[in-house]
């Protein structure tokens, strides 16, 4: 069963038909063509699909589209227009965090949500916010460093 769905994504209204149980991840990628949000595991284990719903980092691979109607969805394509997101992106490039980059959309979304809620995170805040995001290239050392730089406004 498809149903008509309207979402607010990155401040824009998007209307389309989709099965109500379809995860937001696949709506973004396969219906709306917004491929910045990544598929990694499908079971909320890796964080590659992280987006913001009402400012909170959530795993879009297990979040059905019917659950997010009337909520504000922000994706990697738009996170640079938020103050925390812009800081994180800048710090990411200055610390040269990224390797293959596939997980980094999710990493940046988790980090931006962390900084928006906790402007000066300590190591345990960073662990708690970021432990759900796997990076197979092993960029964790630089992720930690970049979050601290972004928080301190050093970037």
């Amino acid at each position, binding site marked *: 069963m*498809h149903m*008509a769905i309207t979402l607010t994504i990155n401040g*824009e*209204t*998007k209307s*389309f*038909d989709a*099965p109500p149980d*379809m*995860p937001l991840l*696949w709506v973004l*990628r*396969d*219906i*709306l*063509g*917004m*491929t*910045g949000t*990544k*598929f*990694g*595991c*499908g*079971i909320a*284990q*890796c964080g*590659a699909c992280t987006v913001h719903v009402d400012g909170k980092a959530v795993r879009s691979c297990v979040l059905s589209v019917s659950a997010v109607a009337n909520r504000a969805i922000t994706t*990697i*394509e738009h*996170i*640079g227009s938020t103050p925390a997101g812009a800081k994180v*992106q800048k710090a*990411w*490039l200055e610390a*040269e965090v*990224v*390797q*293959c*980059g*596939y*997980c*980094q959309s999710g990493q940046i979304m988790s980090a931006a949500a962390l900084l928006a809620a906790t402007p000066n995170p300590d190591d345990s805040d*960073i*662990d*708690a916010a*970021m*432990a*759900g*995001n*796997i*990076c*197979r*290239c*092993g*960029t*964790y*050392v*630089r992720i*930690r460093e970049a979050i601290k730089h972004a928080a301190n406004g050093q970037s």
Partner: protein
Amino acid sequence: MNAHHNVSRRSLLTGSLATGFLLAFHLPLRAAPNEPVQPPDVTDGKFAPNAFIRIDAAGATTLVMPQVEMGQGIYTAVSMILAEELDADWSQVKLLHAPANEKLYGNPIFIIQATGGSTSVRAFWKPLREAGASARAMLVQAAAAQWQVDAASCTTSKGQVTHKASGRTLSYGALAAAASGQTPPKNVPLKDPKDFVYIGQPLKRLDTPDKVNGKAVYGIDAIVPGMKFATLAQCPVFGGKVGKVDDRAAKKIPGVRQVVVLDDLVAVVGDHMWAAKKGLDALEIEWNEGPNAKINSKAVWDDLRAASAKDGVVAKSTGDIGKGLAAGEKIEASFELPFLAHATMEPLNATVHCKPDSCEIWTGTQIMARVQSEAAKAAGLPVEKVTVNQHLLGGGFGRKLEPDMVVAAVRIAKQVEGPVKVVWTREEDIQHDIYRPVYRDTIAASLSGGKIVGWKYKIAGAAVIARWLPPAFQKGIDIDAIDSATDVPYEIPNVHVEYVRAEPPAIPTGFWRGVGPNNNVFAVECFIDELARKAGKDPIEFRRGMLANQPRFLSVLNLAAEKAGWGQPLPARVGRGVCLQPSFGSFIATVVEAEVDEQGEVKLRRAISVVDTGIAVNPDTIVAQVEGGLIFGLTAALYGEITIDKGRVQQSNFHDYRMLRINQTPKIEVHVVKSGEAPGGIGETGTTAGPPALRNAIYAATGVALRRLPIDRKLLAAGKKA
């Protein structure tokens, strides 16, 4: 590449979709005037002196990347090497993925067009420098002809030729047309390294800006007008076939368009991945599991242990091993490494459009030309009718040195009208990998007067090279399986190395980041620590005593000891372990500090690597690769194991095939030694270094000499001894 050419694709798409719906058939995607992934390599009107450099009249300098970008930073390193000898303007550099073309873009080490084995900079160092220098010389000749001056009186810098005496300057863009008519010089001189302006600088990577804003396009992100989406199930038992398929329930799922049944796999095609996945879950498939359904891990290990007891093919023999082993106190140990999956963050995928007379593929691969030729076979087309569009890779680690995912996607696409994107679920990706082989390495050594006098080493494991690059498999020796076993840095008078080819039953094996050195450096460096203990010596002191003629090894080892505070007191059940390795043409010493708690759980505290990799093209990339490589290796040491039961892989996703996470990551310091030697390889070195250094730290902390990976916590609980 995408950074410069794909930006508009997304804005077009989102723009056209903002107003529409038309979901069921994805008409907006079909209707969108989609751009190709990258423009073709058009050389008309450009100065195109060789396969790697194109300069247009505006000075835009497009560099064609013969090696693929999977995170290792090679697009930037290749560009730096070309730009260095070309004296290009770095701000004018744009990148293009190379097309499939073995002749133009073959890796000089492998001959085939492959990215792997930490070879990129080593293999392309000279040809890229020559390409840059030759192009520069032609631009200078063109300027000198126009000015009617001696070419030797002209200089170049940042994309310009200057004649100082007359104060004249011409940009490379202005010279592009005239340079095209010049003859490339023979034996063009290369720069003296002291004159390098780019090489040796930590320049910012060219591929990363679009990787922080969602614009970077990986293979899985390819959007082809009109495409459908598919996911597949292969027989869970290796080599098994499809028996019966009941697709009645699957076909009732909204968005499911087609069920493709092939002899060994079933795919569901739908309007999106969700429909395809739900459709696949709704299929009732009976598999003909075949004879491999009896295979389990115990049988694999029994076979390998039996094979390893046999004599092997001699890979190296110096001195007199019989006398050497008889000379002192003899000890022996065997080390075992498990099957591993690659688990690239980007699951396997390929988008394919098969037509009766052509086939087009969008994917990210480490082997462009082989993918093209294997796809042609699968499509039943001549190779020139197959186009492969390369993408950024969301990790490679050796998995994408294989064409199997593209072949499967082509076979599915042949049954589908129009283009189809085939995406593996994570479960399918892990359960149908081409696995790092199991290895069993046995070392017997004799100690006399605190020194090693005899060293007999036998490697038993699969010969990946025999399958992957048959001409390189000579006289029964797999040059990868023995890599770092025949060039142990220590001075040992009597050395004998043997290789036993032992192929596991039915389980496909392939390259995995760190390749052959992973098993050899692990066995050698773990055993050296056991010998040091037997000799009553500190592990670093013991190594130093055998390195009198190895200044580069000695220097990295000494610096690592200093940076790690080697010898300074540590709390109970905390230890430091060292690894010294000769792998990939680099000289690397690593110290890991780890703590083992009362239950045997291991906590990583610190890792230090000192790297002498010759000339460091981009030192920051080298640091990043070693940091990441260490984490990759330490992940495997702590968690990595694929086990087999009833002919199938037991792990399926990140909950049971675990990865190290940020909260478990230690502090990591990487020190790059200044060197004028030719560049070594770097991408895999950290992966090789991590596990033995960790194991030796655990040995120091607990006295337990682990001889298998992943580490067995049960052996490490308080009160246990080796």
